[in-house]
């Protein structure tokens, strides 16, 4: 079966777009409140666990002498990775003018910001003395002491905070025209909120010109930032001398893994939003197919980099590296390793099958599998090296305690909670960009229809010739 369908219905009226998106922000249904309640419950678990851990000490997490890091750091890397999808969709694809990204980039970008907000917790939670956290920052101190600029952890502090602020600004800037639409259609507290946030957007030419420039500039700024952030996160491992960590290919491997897990998460949220908000018009099967293809490509890159890592370990003849690799594949953690290989390298072939990738429930399950694989990947990077490095006297294996689980579990609740709030407060589909996309697609239509449609659109108070 060959399907050659359009990414979006070009006949859609612009008023319809506004109406559909604004509808999604209104009247939360009971299911929404249930979801919020679940998320809050999950966060509460984490908060309780953290209070307990704070009072008792980190020992309650089962961390021990070789295993100084465990799930917290794995989860941290996981969430950082998750954040890359938004940048990929909104910035990279924006620059290369892949306009099919337009209906789905907004929530992906929100995902970026929220997963960074989630990731940021983990270095804090895992610190022994969280109250001294600010020592990582280079502030002018009475004591004349500075952080250690050689440490990848202090790079992390810079990288993550920069990335978080940049992506938050990017998300916000990109939302301003839509916030103006919301402002024009809102009442009560929302009106006040959107009025403030839309910064007096009127949609005149000067505003649009400046907006374009700013947006493009931020996009250009964000791309190297995203790449560097995950490279720096990989430096947490690669800069060490531990076998299995000290790997040259870690930066691209981490970036690929990050894009991978991010894309998988986009598929998951794609399906959820499409179903709950009835966004079938915008989040079309065609776009899903494109997303799937992209994900598949990234999956193959990741698989390739994985193989490179194994191969270079193998022909590198570093006995310690080799031992760790064999330990990963055959030791007590082997089930995790093979699950990771299955989920990361085998499961994505489902994306290559057209029939499957057009089937939303299947894609939902597959995307969850992919992310499970990617979580395991992070964990497999952290734990086995610690379990088996140089000193055999300290070859312990360890699994995290319930405290670690609770906090990791809660992080998903936290992310979910932020996302749930977002979708009801902000438009999760970019209205103006969808209109743009539709406008571009109409070019090949006959002139009359286009003008006709355009005129109607103008009725909604939005100029049809906005930026061309």
């Amino acid at each position, binding site marked *: 079966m060959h399907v050659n369908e359009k990414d979006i219905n070009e006949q859609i009226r612009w008023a319809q777009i506004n109406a559909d998106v604004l509808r999604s922000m209104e009247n939360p249904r009971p299911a929404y409140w249930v979801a919020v309640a679940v998320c809050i419950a999950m966060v509460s678990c984490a908060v309780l666990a953290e209070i307990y851990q704070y009072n008792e000490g980190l020992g309650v997490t089962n961390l021990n002498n070789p295993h*100084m890091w465990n799930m917290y750091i794995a989860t941290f890397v996981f969430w950082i990775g998750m954040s890359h999808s938004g940048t990929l969709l909104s910035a990279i694809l924006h620059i290369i003018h892949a306009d099919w990204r337009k209906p789905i980039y907004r929530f992906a970008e929100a995902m970026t910001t929220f997963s960074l907000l989630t990731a940021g917790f983990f270095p804090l939670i895992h610190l022994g003395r969280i109250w001294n956290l600010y*020592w990582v920052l280079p502030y002018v101190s009475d004591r*004349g002491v500075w952080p*250690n600029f050689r440490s990848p952890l202090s790079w992390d502090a810079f990288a993550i905070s920069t990335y978080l602020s940049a992506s938050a600004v990017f998300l916000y800037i990109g939302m301003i025209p839509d916030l103006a639409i919301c402002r024009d259609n809102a009442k009560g507290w929302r009106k006040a909120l959107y009025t403030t946030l839309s910064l007096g957007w009127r949609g005149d030419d000067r505003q649009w010109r400046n907006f374009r420039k700013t947006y493009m500039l931020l996009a250009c700024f964000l791309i190297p930032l995203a790449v560097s952030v995950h490279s720096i996160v990989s430096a947490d491992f690669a800069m060490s001398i*531990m076998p299995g960590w000290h790997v040259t290919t870690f930066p691209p491997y981490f970036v690929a893994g990050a894009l991978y897990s991010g894309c998988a998460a986009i598929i998951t949220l794609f399906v959820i939003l499409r179903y709950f908000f009835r966004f079938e018009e915008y989040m079309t099967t065609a776009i899903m197919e494109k997303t799937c293809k992209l994900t598949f490509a990234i999956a193959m890159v990741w698989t390739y980099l994985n193989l490179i890592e194994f191969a270079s370990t193998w022909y590198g003849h570093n006995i310690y590296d080799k031992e760790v690799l064999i330990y990963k594949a055959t030791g007590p953690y082997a089930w995790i390793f093979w699950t990771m290989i299955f989920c990361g390298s085998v499961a994505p072939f489902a994306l290559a099958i057209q029939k499957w990738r057009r089937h939303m429930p299947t894609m939902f399950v597959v995307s969850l599998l992919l992310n499970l694989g990617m979580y395991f990947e992070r964990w497999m990077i952290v734990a086995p090296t610690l379990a088996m490095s140089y000193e055999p006297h300290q070859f312990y294996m360890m699994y995290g305690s319930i405290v670690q689980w609770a906090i990791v579990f809660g992080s998903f609740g936290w992310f979910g909670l932020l996302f749930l709030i977002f979708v009801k407060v902000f438009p999760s589909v970019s209205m103006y960009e969808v209109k743009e996309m539709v406008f571009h697609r109409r070019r090949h239509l006959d002139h009359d229809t286009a003008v006709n449609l355009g005129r109607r659109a103008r009725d909604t108070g939005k100029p049809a010739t906005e930026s061309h």
Partner: protein
Amino acid sequence: MSFKNILENWSAFRKDAEAGGHHKYDHRWGMAINLDVCTGCNACSTACYAENNLPVVGKERFEKGQAMHWMRIERFWDDADKQYPERGASYLPMMCQQCGAATCEPVCPVAATYHTPDGLNAQVYNRCIGSRYCSNNCPFRVRYFNFYSYYETWAEPLNQQLNPDISVRDKGVMEKCTFCVQRIRTANDKAKMENRSIADGEVQTACAQACPTGAIVFGDTMDPNSAVSKLWAKHEVKRGDYLSKKPKQHPEKRGYRIFEELNVDPSVMYLERVREEI
């Protein structure tokens, strides 16, 4: 106290870092441990507990791998495949090796671990924020983390035994063998008060002092006349870069440093165990 400070120190620091750390050492404390006479009796380890305010973690936490023995005696069996271990056990007293190019130092985000001018790998407890990266990057796994507030576990009056010369560590702080820095500092202060330099044998670590067989020799490896320097020289073990170092003239000499191939330049030389074939 200013940006001037950071700029000035930064360039000096950067140069030092590129050239492999300090080059103006006052002393370089080191050890030689003769594994042939080490009987694995644990006297050193207990002496370390007594000297350095080490907490006793109890059975459950020991089982979890959270024990705090700065000096641990590792015990290996070399002929595990035979019916009986006919050549006895291999004992290895393992503590912080005070590496000259310590891998723990560059990774600490707040520089709580650094190299002192007397060649020690310092751990400043009150600067530590507990990121535990140093321990992850230690090939010897000799850094111990305060997973709990152990000072609460010294039941009165056991706490009266605590050595006032060093801090009692609270939860969230990394710690490790310091080569009994409080003794070094006290001896150093004493020498300075008398306007002289510290003499060989004037300062001993708790483990070296206790060791019933005298297997542990401690001293300044920069002083060519110290007992430890003589041992290092006798066994042709030199400090510094592993790769550029000339191979031993007599490769059969017993001295070696553990994980020397990682180029971490440990300050502890071990002498090989000897066994007679019967």
